[in-house]
C-alpha cells in the first residue's frame, strides 16, 4: 500500500440511500488509516465531497435500502458508473430497521405523524412535487441492481471496511475473518 507515486488512483464513490449514515461513520472509523487510504484512492461523489453526480468509478459503496424514487435513481446511476458495487450494512443488504415500516399502511402513518398528533397546528401531509415519490416498501438494493459484494453489520466496523477495501484494491479476494464478520 505504501508507494503509490505515479500509479493512477482508484476512484471510489459512496452514497447513502435509506440509511442512517452510521455506515459512513464506520468508514470514517478507519481513523488515521483514512489518511493512508487518501493516498491511493480518489473520491468521486460522496457525502464527504462536493461532487453531486457520480462519474466512472472503480468502486461504489452503498449504505441504506431503497425507499423512494430518488434512491432508485441514485442507485442505478451508481450501478452504471461503478465497476464494483458493494452493499455496506444491514439496510443495504436487507432493508435494515427502516424496513420495519413494510408492514404498515403508509396512508395511516402519514395521518398519524402530520395530522392527528398533539402539538401540531394546521396539519397536512407534505405533497410538494419537489419531494420524491415514496415506495410502499423499503427494498434491499440487490432487488433493484446487481451487487458484487455485501459487507454485513449495523454497521460493519471501520476495521472490516478497511480490510475489505485494501484487499480489493490490492487485487486479492476480499476476506473478512470471523471477528470482523458481525451482524449487530
Amino acid at each position, binding site marked *: 500500500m505504501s508507494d503509490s507515486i505515479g500509479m493512477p488512483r482508484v476512484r471510489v464513490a459512496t452514497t*447513502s440511500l*435509506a*440509511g*442512517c*449514515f*452510521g455506515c*459512513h*461513520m*464506520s468508514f470514517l472509523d478507519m*481513523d*488515521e488509516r*483514512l*489518511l493512508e487510504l*487518501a493516498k491511493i484512492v480518489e*473520491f468521486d461523489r*460522496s*457525502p*464527504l*465531497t*462536493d*461532487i*453531486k453526480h457520480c462519474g466512472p468509478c472503480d468502486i461504489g459503496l452503498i449504505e441504506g435500502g431503497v*425507499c*423512494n*424514487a430518488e434512491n432508485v435513481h441514485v442507485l442505478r446511476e451508481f450501478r452504471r458508473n461503478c465497476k464494483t458495487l458493494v452493499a455496506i450494512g444491514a439496510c443495504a443488504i436487507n432493508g435494515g*430497521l*427502516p424496513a*420495519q*415500516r413494510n408492514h*404498515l399502511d*403508509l*396512508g395511516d402513518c*402519514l395521518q*398519524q*405523524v*402530520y395530522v392527528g398528533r*398533539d*402539538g*401540531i*397546528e394546521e*396539519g397536512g*401531509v*407534505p*405533497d*410538494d412535487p*419537489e*419531494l420524491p*415519490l*415514496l*415506495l*410502499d*416498501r423499503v*427494498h434491499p438494493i440487490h*432487488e*433493484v441492481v*446487481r451487487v458484487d459484494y455485501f459487507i454485513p453489520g*449495523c*454497521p460493519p*466496523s471501520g476495521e472490516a471496511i478497511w480490510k475489505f477495501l485494501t484487499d480489493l484494491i490490492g487485487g486479492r479476494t476480499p476476506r473478512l475473518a470471523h471477528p470482523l464478520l458481525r451482524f*449487530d
Partner: protein
Amino acid sequence: MDSSLETAADREHLHRVVIDPVSRVEGHGKVTLLLDDDDHVREARLHIVEFRGFEVFIQGRPYWEVPVMVQRLCGICPVSHHLAASKAMDRVLGIPVTRSAEKLRRLMHYGQILQSHALHFFHLSSPDLLFGFESEVGKRNIVGVAAAYPEVARQGVLLRKFGQEVIRATAGKRIHGTGSVPGGMNRHLAVEDRDALRAEIDHMVEWSRAAVELVKRLHRADPALYDEFGRFRANVMSLVRADGAMDLYHGALRFRDADGKILVDKVPDQSYRSLIREQVKPWSYMKFPYLQQLGPDEGWYQVGPLARVQNCDFIPTPLAEAERREFIDHGRGEPVRATLAYHWARMIEMLHAAEVIRDLLGDGDLLEGALLADGERGNEGVGIIEAPRGTLIHHYQVGDDDLVTMCNLIVSTTHNNQAMNTAVREVARRYLDGRKLTEGLLNHIEVAIRAYDPCLSCATHALGKMPLVLELADAGGEVVDRVVRD
C-alpha cells in the same frame, strides 16, 4: 420575521435552480431556488426529501428495545438518541438513575459531543473555511485539507477517534452500542479503558484549544465575512442546569428572544408540550416548531452550539468558560448572530467536552457502584438531551403490557428548520440575487446550511406521500413494487 422568499407569487414563470444533494452534510436534503428573467431570487427553500417513519413503527414495540432501535435514526449522533430514549424510559419506569449510571451516561454523551463536533468541523466544514467558498470543487473535502494542512487534518481525525473510543468504552460499540438501558446502565468502565483514555486526554484538551484558536484566527482574518454572512435575528432555546450553567446531559428549558432577554425559563423537560408546537408545510417532510406563546411567525428559534453558548450563564469548566467570555465580548452587548459563528461556538463546546471527559475519567464512580435502582412504574415519559446539534426531545407512552403506544420525536435539526431556511434566504438575497449562478456562488448557500451541522438523517423520521405512480423493477426487469398515490 421576514418570510418574503419562502413562496414566490407567480411560480410558473420562474426558472428553477436546484442544489441536489446538499453535500458535506449528514442526510438527504436539497435546495430549490426560483429566479425571474433578471436572475432575481424570488423563492428559496431547503427541502428535506427523505422519510422513514420511526415514530410510527416504534409504536407496538416493547419499551426496552427502544433505546437500541432509535439509534438507527442517526449514525452520527446515535448516543444522543440512545440516551434521550433511556431518559424517557427512566421516567416510565419511575427509576431514579444511580450516581454511577448517570456519570457513565455523561461520559458517553460528552464523548459523542467531542466526536461529532470534530467530525463536523474538520471533515465537513473546514474545506470551505480554509480554502474559500469558491475554491476548486475537487479540493473541497477532508482529503484536500489533509494535503494542504496535514496537522489540522490529523488532529481532527484523532479528536474524532478519541470521542468514538469514549463511546466504545461506555456503550460497547462505536456506533449503535447498548450501554444504556431504561433505568440505568449495563456496564461499568473497564480499568484498562479508563487508563487508555486518560493517557490521551491531555492532548485532546490541547488540540481542542488549538481548534478554538483556529476559528478565532479565521474570524480575525476576515471580520466582514465572518460577522455578516447569514446574519439575522433569532430566538434561541436550550437546556440549562438549575444554576444557569451549560449542561448538555440534563436540565430545564430556557428560551431567549432575539435581543437576548430570557422569555421563558426553568420549564421542566416533562412539560415541553406547554412550550412548543409544530407547523407542517407541504414542501418539506421536516416540521417547523415554534414557541407557542409567540406563534409560528415570531416564535421560531435556533438551537445548537450558537444558542447554547449564549443561552447559559456560564460554562462549568475553566478553559471553555474563558473562551465563552471572549465570544460574548465579540458581540459588544448584542447577541452574536452571524451564521459562521456557529463554528466558533461549536469548538468552544468541543473544548468543554474534552474538559468534562478529563474530569470524569478521574472519578471512581465509573468503575463501581449500582447501575440500576428500583422504581414505581408509570406510563409516560419525556427525555430531553442537548445533542451535538441542539435540543433533542423523545416522548413515549407505554401500556401496561410494556408495549409503546405513542412516540413523538422532535430532533435537533427540526428545531433549526426555520432558521436554516432563513439563513438560505439571507445568503441568496445578499450573494446570489441578480447574478449568473456559478457552482461557487451556490456553495455559499451550502456553507450556510453546513454551519448548522444539520443532521438531515435524524430529521427524516416522519412519513410523506406524493401524488404519482411509480413502478420499481428488479435487476431482472420484474416489477417488484408499485406505488399509486392520489
